[in-house]
């Protein structure tokens, strides 16, 4: 039993799950890098490594909330949102990180659409939070599936992960929303510029 780390380029798909195009190979199931687009894993007969169902369901639920948020004020914004939800669902079904990320991006696109159309701030916040959580849960479902498979009991870890992300997201957006409410009235463009500058500087440092 040897586990090695694999590198999956987010752009390049790891074949997984139901496409049935998997190569059966002798020996251990650990492969090295998954950089090649045509990488076929050496997982053998039997072990179902499709995404964990619990996290996948939570992901869809969060995606639904995102659509709800962006459709709250601007009904037409629900259309791209639903498209994102479909992409997300397809990604979860096929175990594709790329599709799940794509679904999240389209969900965010729905939020932008709603924002430009003048949607209420609370709805937009819900839309963005839902989209990020949908991606987070979806990616976790895929990784959990690849590492442990469907047959394992992974519920508790998934629940913990989901709850932690939800807690962080809710508290974070609560604080942001609180500040927004406190500053209701004018639109201090100065504040915006300062905050933006802060984000650019900090994000640049933190993501190194």
């Amino acid at each position, binding site marked *: 039993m040897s586990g090695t780390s694999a590198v999956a380029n987010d752009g390049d798909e790891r074949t997984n799950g139901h496409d049935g195009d998997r190569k059966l190979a002798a020996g251990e199931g650990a492969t090295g890098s998954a950089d090649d687009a045509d990488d076929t894993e050496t997982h053998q007969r039997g072990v179902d490594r499709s995404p964990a169902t619990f996290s996948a369901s939570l992901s869809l639920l969060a995606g639904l909330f995102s659509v709800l948020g962006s459709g709250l004020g601007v009904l037409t914004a629900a259309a791209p949102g639903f498209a994102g939800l479909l992409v997300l669902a397809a990604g979860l079904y096929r175990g594709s990180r790329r599709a799940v990320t794509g679904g999240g991006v389209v969900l965010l696109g729905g939020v932008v659409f709603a924002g*430009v159309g003048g949607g209420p701030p609370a709805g937009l916040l819900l839309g963005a939070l839902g989209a990020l959580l949908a991606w987070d849960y979806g990616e976790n479902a895929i990784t959990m599936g690849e590492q442990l498979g469907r047959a394992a*009991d992974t519920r*508790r870890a998934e629940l913990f992960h989901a709850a932690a992300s939800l807690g962080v997201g809710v508290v974070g957006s609560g604080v942001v929303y609180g500040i927004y409410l406190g500053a209701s009235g004018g639109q201090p463009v100065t504040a915006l510029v300062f905050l933006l500058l802060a984000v650019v500087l900090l994000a640049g440092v933190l993501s190194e």
Partner: protein
Amino acid sequence: MSTVGSEEGTDVDDGTATEGRSATARDGSDDADDREGSMRGGVQEGAGDGPDEHDGDDESPEEAERLTVRDVLDTDRWVGAPAVTLLFAGLAIVVDRQAGLLLAGAVGVVFAAYAYGSGTPAPTLAVERRLSDETPGPGDDVRVTVTVRNEGEATLPDLRLVDGVPPALAVGEGSPRHATALRPGKRATFSYVVPAVRGRHEWESMQVIVRNAPGTREVDATVDSAEPTTLRCSPDLDATGDLPLRGLTTQYTGRIATDVGGPGLEFHSTRDYRHGDPLNRVDWNRMARTGELATLDFREERAATVVLLVDAREEAYVAPEPGAENAVERSVEAAGRSFSALLGGGDRVGLAALGPDELWLAPGAGNDHRARARDLLASHPALSPTPPDGRFFPSLRLRRLRRQLPSDAQLIVFSPLVDDYVASVARRLDAYGHLVTVVSPDPTAGGTPGELLARIERRSRISRLRRAGLRVVDWGDEPLATAVAGAAGRWSG
């Protein structure tokens, strides 16, 4: 899904999981404590205050030694989260000059900060594995219950476990994988079922993947249980009678029937009664007729000496399907059943293997001998259900075998006959004057051209052996008894 589920709920934070461990095991662990104290990610609570004083009821420190970190990864999961904030804010300014999008975008920074702010988990774990039966018979279901305890002081938010099931065992029910979150001192338990197969199987270390809450840092480690977990599954040598090897052994006894009178079955002669002759051999008919005491002599049957030779070279580890029972396992099964059938028939039976690991059990009889053979068949490395590592020196092994073989020994060779080597060995032993029978489990499949060719070549090999006067039992999917009976019919016919 039969896993018991993670029960963090049981508020046991002491050593109940491992109670009953012997003092010697503790001593060993204490040594390990000194050597590898720095390996531990956890905190050394109570390690200094002499674990010798509280014997066996609290062993948190030394349990934790068994964790080895192999790799720590940045998963880069949340890379790009600030892009959400920047793009939303930029669009908010450039396109609509409203606060809504700016607000929504802030979520990206929240998650980026969450990802950045979470450190690397430092797992300290104790693993205990329990088997429902450590010495099952072949085919018995054994339930493996695994308990993992968080011995550290921090909560492990995402703990993914893959148990090291021995390579020759397959999991029948449940899964040897589990994921949970564990607070300090809490335990999680899961279980799975493995059907036992012959051999000595030792569990490998458990793979542990520990992630922080946002999943950005991942620790890949292995943990061993305090004591090695071993399953020993011996073939059942007591059940005799279902293998009609007698068809084979009458030939043997027929061949070595002696001209010496004595106890036996077939009438040989009569002679005058001598003091001490057993009463059941007194010729009572003559006594009635003439009044003289006479003793019947029967043709004495000397027991045959049979050596069972198992082909256990790496080449013999083949099977019609990748995970199926391989030819060596089938050979050993057949050897075990032949052993008990022959022993039950009064023959002297020995055991040997052709392979890198040497195995030789000189022919013998009796219950002790049977027990010895059972032991060897169960757990001798030469007959392991997984292929050997060592190098095999064919001519050396054969020369050795010839020296060991009693000159009158007959041989039953168990081999899948997938290459010419064993066929040539059988013919050479036959040429040296041993009576050789080959029992050959068929490992070929007929799917691809290559598989069909292998089957063709094996058939040719068998027919070549038969033409050379050797007896071959070609054992396919049918029960061994049927195959032997079929082959015996061919010999007598």
